[in-house]
């Protein structure tokens, strides 16, 4: 999966080529987001035309470049499925599809790691990281930090250290909440600045390391608004196969919108949690669990903000313009 991971596309493409060579595969399926398609296409055509190659790595006829909607859930089957057709359908497959296809699908970070491990040896790799989570990885920092980007670090680094590397929270602001790995991982607060960012550390405080795409928010951000935005994403991405995710997300968005608008009723926070209880662990795949994680962790850490949604709109408590990184004149409305 070639994502624009802050690396040059050419570099990423070279990783794919080397992986293919290692696997002696003759066919590559490039799955990328839509804006990338033309650049990848150019890359592929240039590769075939480059002189000095003994034989083209990829015969043109066997390259498939497809665009797919990026999905939160990591099911490989659904990823392949989303490339095959615009609607997404999660299906049960007997084995990991990658084993059936003569193609490797390395992520940018793991394929990069592969090369280095091969070069420097496993002991070198094991000297980094923690007891159970070894090696180094790429942490992606985004949000209210001075220098968002990708940071290669050993597993077990803390958010405090990562913030140092990235210049810290933007001037005049302080950390309010953050997620260790994208929206599917339960949110954490400033309390957890020194928890090691490895699998065990995150598990120990009730979250997950996930994709290590840290999202960092400062005190100008409304938790209610953020949760709504996340759940709108899950509602949009839900494939619709199973009832709890399809209907539960639909319901959560409407409820959260009433919290955002300050029109929530008494008992709605309990209702929110009960809906999550009926969704979590009951669905066909983990997408519903991701949505549930947003809501339950947000309520756990910032219940008062939700309760305030019975009377006051979130945009009054936390004027939205203030959390933007640029000048905003009016209230920004968020749509599903």
């Amino acid at each position, binding site marked *: 999966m070639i994502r624009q991971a802050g690396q040059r596309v050419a570099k990423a493409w070279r990783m794919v080529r080397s992986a293919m060579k290692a696997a002696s595969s003759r066919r590559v399926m490039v799955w990328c987001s839509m804006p990338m398609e033309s650049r990848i296409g150019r890359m592929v055509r240039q590769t075939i035309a480059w002189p000095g190659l003994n034989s083209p790595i990829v015969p043109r006829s066997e390259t498939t470049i497809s665009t797919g909607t990026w999905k939160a859930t990591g099911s490989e089957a659904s990823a392949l499925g989303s490339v095959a057709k615009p609607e*997404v359908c999660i299906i049960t497959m007997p084995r990991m599809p990658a084993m059936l296809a003569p193609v490797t699908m390395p992520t940018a970070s793991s394929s990069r790691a592969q090369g280095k491990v091969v070069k420097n040896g496993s002991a070198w790799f094991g000297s980094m990281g923690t007891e159970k989570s070894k090696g180094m990885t790429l942490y992606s920092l985004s949000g209210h930090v001075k220098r968002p980007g990708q940071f290669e670090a050993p597993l077990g680094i803390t958010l405090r250290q990562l913030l140092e590397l990235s210049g810290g929270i933007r001037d005049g602001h302080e950390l309010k909440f953050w997620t260790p790995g994208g929206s599917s991982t339960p949110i954490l607060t400033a309390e957890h600045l020194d928890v090691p960012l490895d699998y065990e550390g995150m598990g120990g405080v009730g979250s997950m390391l996930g994709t290590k795409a840290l999202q960092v928010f400062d005190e100008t951000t409304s938790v209610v608004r953020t949760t709504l935005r996340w759940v709108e994403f899950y509602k949009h991405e839900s494939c619709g196969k199973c009832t709890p995710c399809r209907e539960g997300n*639909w319901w959560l968005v409407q409820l959260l919108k009433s919290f955002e608008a300050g029109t929530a009723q008494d008992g709605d926070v309990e*209702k929110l949690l009960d809906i999550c209880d*009926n969704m979590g662990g009951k669905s066909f795949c983990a997408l519903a669990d991701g949505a549930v994680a947003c809501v339950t962790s947000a309520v756990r850490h910032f219940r008062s903000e939700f309760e305030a949604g019975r009377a006051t709109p979130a945009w009054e408590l936390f004027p939205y313009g203030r959390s933007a990184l640029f000048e905003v004149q009016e209230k920004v409305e968020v749509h599903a």
Partner: protein
Amino acid sequence: MSVVTKPTGPVAPVETITVTIDGTEVQVPKGTLAIRAAEMIGIAIPRFCDHPLLDPVGACRQCMVEVPDMGNGRGMPKPQASCTLECAPGMQIRTQLTSPVAAKAQTGMLEFLLINHPLDCPICDKGGECPLQNQALSNGRGESRYEGVKRTFPKPVPISAQILLDRERCVLCARCTRFSEQISGDPFIALVERGALQQVGRYADHPYDSYFSGNVVQICPVGALTSASYRFQSRPFDLVSTDVTCEHCASGCRLRTDQRHFQVKRRLAGEFAEVNEEWNCDKGRFAFVSARGDDRLTRPLIREDGALRVASWPEAIDAAVAGLAAAGSSVGVLTGGRLTLEDAYGYSKFARVVLGTNSIDFRSRPGGVDEAQFLATRVAGRTLADAVTYADLEAASHVVLVGFEPEEESPLVFLRLRKAVRKKGLKVTAIAPFASNGNAKLNATVVATVPGEEAAALRALDLAAGDVLLVGERAALAPGALAAAAEVADATGARLAWVPRRAGDRGAVEAGCLPGLLPGGRPLADSAARVDLAAAWEVEGLPTGDGLEAAAMLAAAASGELKALVVAGVEPADFADAAAARAGLEEAGFVVSLENRLSEVTERADVVFPVALIEEHAGTFLNWEHRPGRVNTVIRQPNTPMTDLRVLAALADALGTPLGVRTAQQALTELTELGTWPAATAAQKKPARKAAAKPAKPARVTDGEATVRLATWRQLIDGGRGQDNEEALAATAKPSLARVSPALATALGVVDGDQVAVSGGSGWYSLPVAVTPGMAEGTVWVPQNSPGTPLGELGVVFGDEVTLSVGGAE
């Protein structure tokens, strides 16, 4: 009536495992799903997407159970969908009865399903028999906590002329799309879009063109799929249900017929694992209103001064007696293939005992020279016990189809073959002019055969013992095909079964509605059989002269040699030569018609007796497996017309020779007591004539005209009278086209869609061409009786030579 079952051999031991459900230990076969295991001990776990005949999918998440022990001492951390959970030895399962977690999960699911579900119950067909309603009451909350906005769609949307889709009601269980893809193989509907806007979508280029589309209405757990013909007709609790066997084809499906106010409102597929499992075809489901028009007959008619007038029963009987007595034994009986076994028996006995003739024939369709011989030796007298059955089709490794197009002629045989192809790797070989859609869905190897060459093609196949040879009625028209089938079966040990097209055909053979065959498979030529029958019937003797076959009867009636005809429900257009049939009826001295509607026969009859509709009958149909299927009376009213049998009994009494049976029950008892005659093997009156197979001539194309062989068969939904008055069904019929091979099309200079004229016999038809790759050369295929192409009018049958020319739409 006794139930005839096949004696089973030693059953292979099934490996069982023990699981505990809600504290009760139960032994289940290995591989059983948890939801099925619970049903075995009477625990109904609520579900929507699960269906025992469809592959499990685990979509609706309604059937949540808790698994505290997977069988290895460890519990599963989350509740599981029991429809996708295979039981493991020692597994502990807790359903909603003993697990608060499972109960809450199920209640939660129902709440979720109802948040976007429209409040349509008062206007929804499914109300009263709705699994969503029922399960919401049994496992759901009393009130919903949802106060938001529901998603809406324009509704209803027709996905075919018959099936209407209401997307708001859909719970996305995917039963309909899975049925279409897995069972019937017609993937014209699929789930499209995603999230809460996911919906059942139709293939853009075609409506839901499937002969089995009605089944999705039945399996839909909500009212999302409804049928245009039943919509808003009734609430289920106002319906009175009766089990019947379908009267259309010889598959023998059990149906549930629902009537309200003495009118049949709808027919559902009945549950009968041995035959139709839980499916039926659209013809059986929807084509039951043919007698709803103004042409229904309820009173006897007599022809006076050239016109029919209403008469009383005594008057009509007297008139019939006068005519028949004058004719003596120069009478022919045409029964058709739509009578119940008991009615057919009544005609058979009436002909021999009362009229004193052996001229009786059920074949109101093109027949062949070898057919009577084949039926007498290979079909009559056989029982279910030694027959090929649906189970045998499923278990076979190779099935060969000769002159038989399952999807068009016996849809449930098609479904069972397809099931075996999908699940057990059954190999199907079809000896047919081209690969039809049905053949494609069976992954059949098609031996493209010019009509008439079937015998040679069959002999060229390599069959083994245990293979099954399914021979359709059309094989009678291919010279030597039936004899070849019999020979090949005997030589290789393959099993042979004859699959006729109409529900009453097999029963008619058993009842002796053939000129050379007496009831119970007794050959006319066998004097011992005649004596036996005469003794059973308590008559002095039986007529010994050879009877005439149907076409011969009509010709003899036209020429005056045959003085009278007694005709049951037949259509002249079905005969090989419709004009000759009409002429025979027209010119015959005296015609007695027993019909339930005005028809081309009643137009030419001297006396018409009204008879009961199939829903007013009690009786039996024998299907192609020789399996008896009960037809129970659906509608019983004081003024219901009499059955054919009862009318014949009245006529017999008036003619002075009582029939001996008046009711279906008596007829069946008598026929059963007669027993079957040991299958005739060597004793044949005439040696089997093996007509020399005409070698296929390549099509000669001159001046845009080609002489080709005609291939044809009846499509499932076509111009047959039994399908009248059901417009929605008629609109789903396949279009009439002329199929030719690419080479022939090129030679003629036509492409897809061009008009061609098919001429033969007494006229021609113009049809659009469909170029069909892989089709046999020198052949054109045309539907036998679709609107615009009743081939009986031309007088040509399968295997005849016809002329194909370009143009024709003048």
